């Protein structure tokens, strides 16, 4: 391909658009079948054109390559967007997963899946992005599974001084019926 080919521009923009991590120039060169020097020229031109056209994003050089990022000038709108965005309420699945992590930490995905009967992948990602759950280590056993635990932000949010302040489950394991009675307000509070 050649730098003059509009397909190159479209392709490279699409790649930068979907890539979740910075893309290195040699990698782009390989996919686009262009010399690395041409790719670097292309990136400079692209970055300049974005700035000239007043686009909502910029092309940045980051560690290891190029990536798109939202334009800093748009930050006030983004802030309003994220704060007014229909509050993605905690789903039941997320709350249950959080409970498993809180009471069984450090815990692996597989262990969460076993307790809840379903894979926690996407839910766990949300909890991690929102800073309530974090990776806390690796299982020393085979597979070296990532282990998860709750964060300081989680404790602050629930008003806990330490994890020891979590109301105990062990020793008193209520039946489902008891929990339901409590939820309907007939049972004793904590």
């Amino acid at each position, binding site marked *: 391909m050649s730098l003059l080919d509009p397909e190159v521009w479209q392709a490279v923009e*699409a790649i930068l*658009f*979907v890539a*979740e991590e910075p893309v290195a120039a040699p990698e782009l060169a390989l996919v686009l079948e262009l010399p690395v020097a041409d790719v670097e020229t292309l990136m400079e031109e692209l970055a300049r054109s974005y700035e000239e056209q007043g686009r909502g994003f910029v092309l940045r050089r980051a560690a290891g390559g190029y990536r798109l*990022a*939202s334009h800093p000038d748009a*930050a006030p709108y*983004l*802030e309003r967007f*994220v*704060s007014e*965005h229909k*509050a*993605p*309420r*905690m789903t039941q699945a*997320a*709350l*249950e997963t*959080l*409970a*498993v992590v*809180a*009471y069984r930490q450090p815990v692996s995905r597989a262990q969460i899946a076993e*307790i*809840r*009967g379903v894979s926690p992948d996407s839910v766990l990602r*949300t909890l991690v*992005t*929102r*800073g*309530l759950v974090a990776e806390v280590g690796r299982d020393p056993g085979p597979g070296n599974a990532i282990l998860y635990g709750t964060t300081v932000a989680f404790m602050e*949010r*629930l*008003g*806990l001084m330490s994890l020891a302040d*979590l*109301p105990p*489950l062990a020793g008193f*394991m*209520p*039946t*489902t019926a008891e*929990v339901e009675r*409590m*939820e309907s307000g007939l049972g004793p*509070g*904590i």
Partner: protein
Amino acid sequence: MSFAVHLSVFEGPLDLLLQLVSKDRVDVADVTIATITEDFLRAVDALDTIDLDGASSFLVLAATLLELKSVKLLPHEEADPETAALLEERDRLLQRLVEYATFKAASEALSQVLDANEGYFTRAGGVPEELRPALPDLLEGVTLERFWKVAAKVFAPRVAQPVDTSFIAPMRVSVAEMVEVLAEELRRRRFTSFRDLCGESASRADVVVRFLALLELFRQQCVQVEQPGPFDGITVRWRQPRLGAERRGDPEEPR
């Protein structure tokens, strides 16, 4: 009649049955529960599986088909409550088949829509790090008490769901027991008909058990079975087991 059936265990027994009943046959009159059942059993036999759940779902349906087929072998009265129950069973199966066919057709349409919308990729998205604090509180309205209740519920032992056994008819004699009874009788009589083996007074459930027992003996190569055509009587001949041909579990052969 033979034709290739495309099948994997994940497509399920209803898919197999649907393929069999929807298959174009030269002679429509030839489409009977007998041929369908035989085709079904042959396909199940060829099914290469170590998936017990998958395999058992095929066997449950095979048992239903066998039950429907076995009725064909016997005289019956319309008013017979067991015949009525089987007719209901057949209607239920037909209903499931129609429902399954509907969803199968819908899935083909979905597949086309998916293909037509191929090639669009979206960003994972996500706001820049510095804007994260502006994100709304995910735990809004969640008190420690509510959190504890959710945890208690998650860790509470699950109520075991009862296994649905409604499709299993009550049987007075197990098939295993009936295998021994029939083997004993056949050793004595050497050659007889299935109708004689059942006797006049046998209930429909007994007939089904005897039929399954006969199939088991056939599988163990203890009997030769002959049926000139669908709906004809079945003749049964006891075979002298070849020397050394006995396998463990075979009925004992008198010396």
